[in-house]
């Protein structure tokens, strides 16, 4: 080993600089990689999605459609339409509409929601999230609330 005759402050600064640069470079390599992994998919707009053939639905009928990748159940009550997120708030199974009882049923754990999405019975902790309905010129559009 040879003797080092350098002022320790200069050496200290150099080491500090290299450490700082390495951290910056490391961050610059890792952070974009993590950002890259973040899903970029927009999956379509969650606004004013037309319910195809809504006018053909008879009163009491329901139809499940996809809005921005999520299942949304649209129910026709006489002339009025209602839409809810179809995923049960318990464990995410898709609910079905029972027109004879005017209730949503979850096939997984026998949960029941009423026509307003409120929990009637079963394990769900909260009502079904409701979607906005807009009727323009005979067409029905659904938007996330």
């Amino acid at each position, binding site marked *: 080993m040879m003797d080092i005759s350098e002022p320790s402050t200069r050496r200290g600064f150099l080491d500090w600089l290299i450490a700082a640069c390495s951290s910056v*470079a490391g961050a610059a390599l890792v952070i*974009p*990689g993590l*950002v*890259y*992994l*973040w899903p*970029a*998919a927009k999956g379509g707009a969650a606004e004013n999605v037309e319910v195809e053939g809504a006018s053909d639905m008879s009163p009491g009928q329901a139809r499940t459609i996809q809005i921005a990748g999520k299942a949304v159940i649209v129910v026709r009550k006489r002339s009025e339409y209602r839409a809810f997120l179809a995923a049960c708030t318990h464990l995410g199974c898709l609910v079905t509409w029972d027109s004879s009882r005017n209730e949503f049923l979850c096939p997984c754990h026998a949960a029941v929601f009423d026509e307003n999405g409120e929990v009637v019975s079963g394990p769900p902790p909260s009502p079904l999230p409701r979607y906005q309905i807009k009727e323009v010129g005979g067409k029905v559009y659904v938007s996330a609330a």
Partner: protein
Amino acid sequence: MGLGRQIESFLDDRFDTETARGFVDKQAHKRLPPNTGWFHVFGSLSLLLFVSQTITGILLLIYYRPTPEAAHESIQYITAEVYFGWLYRQIHAWGGTLMILAVVFHMVRTYFWGAYKKPRELTWVTGVLIFIGTITFGFTGYLLPWNQLAFWATTVGTESANKVPLIGSWLQYFLRGGDAVTGETLSRFFVVHVIILPWLFTGLVVVHLILMRLNNLATFERVGEEKPSPPEYGIPFFPVHVAKEGVVVVLLLAVLVTLSVLVPWEIGEPADPLSTPAHIKPEWYFLPSYQLLKYFEGPYGAIIGIFACSLPFFLLFLWPFLDRGKERHPKRRPLAVGFGLLGLLGALFLGYLGHISETEQTFFGKRYYIDLLGRPNEIVDDAGTSESKAH
């Protein structure tokens, strides 16, 4: 007791950490020969680029879809929608090109430094395999964006497999997974590019590195007359050599990003099997073979052509066993150096001819049409016959 100490004692109780620590220390601080210079960084650069290709490749795989219907669109999606997708695609594309360059430079250095000689013949042979692997990476990866250039370059590339004697048509059928380049080809190339080659390649690199470590780097001393230099003359891998490579690595990363931003690879038109774009040429590293093959026509010519194209690779494999001279220093082995230079210049010249063939070029103020074989034909402007003369 700190967390580090706790982990240490946990491990100590379970296996002989002393040996492991000793091994790591020995490898990390191993002294490289004193003549290890700046030219010795290409090996580590190649390794660094391989690591970079692996990481960016895995990232691209997250969004890439290897079917003819979706491949091109998924590349567009990566480029346009995914955060930093453009960056990773560009770094992967440019990284591949730079990796081939780095491997070639590494081989050139090894050749002229005489480092392939005994006892390092096997290191060289694994190196040649790594070189072929790198090129195969390039060939298979080029098809994956499924754009016009890729599709037709692959069609032309696999077409030449047909010229291999006896098994040519079978080989072509096998490579393409059918009679033409289709989704089957894409699947094959994809699997080779992301599964088979990476593992083979990793294995080869590990063997290559172990062999390199066992024999240490070569000096310019004559074969069999190497004297172990006193350790204080050697350069410790860590921290001295690592600091040196750090300089190159930092610059290389900056160059990669710069190329990605300023000279981006275009996505191109989606592949259309029904229309061939004009002037289809392979990537630059295939240009010498591409040009060489053109000079051999007919049934026998094709065989000779394939032979001529594979000869350099056979020579590379066998070289350490053919050149058994004791000297390593380039000044003291003019024949081998001359031969190497000749081969290198020949490849460069053929590659250049391939690059300019079938284009118009201006030399010394005169315009020439370079034909298929690289012969210049002067273009005369005044007469209408100039076109016919040019062709």
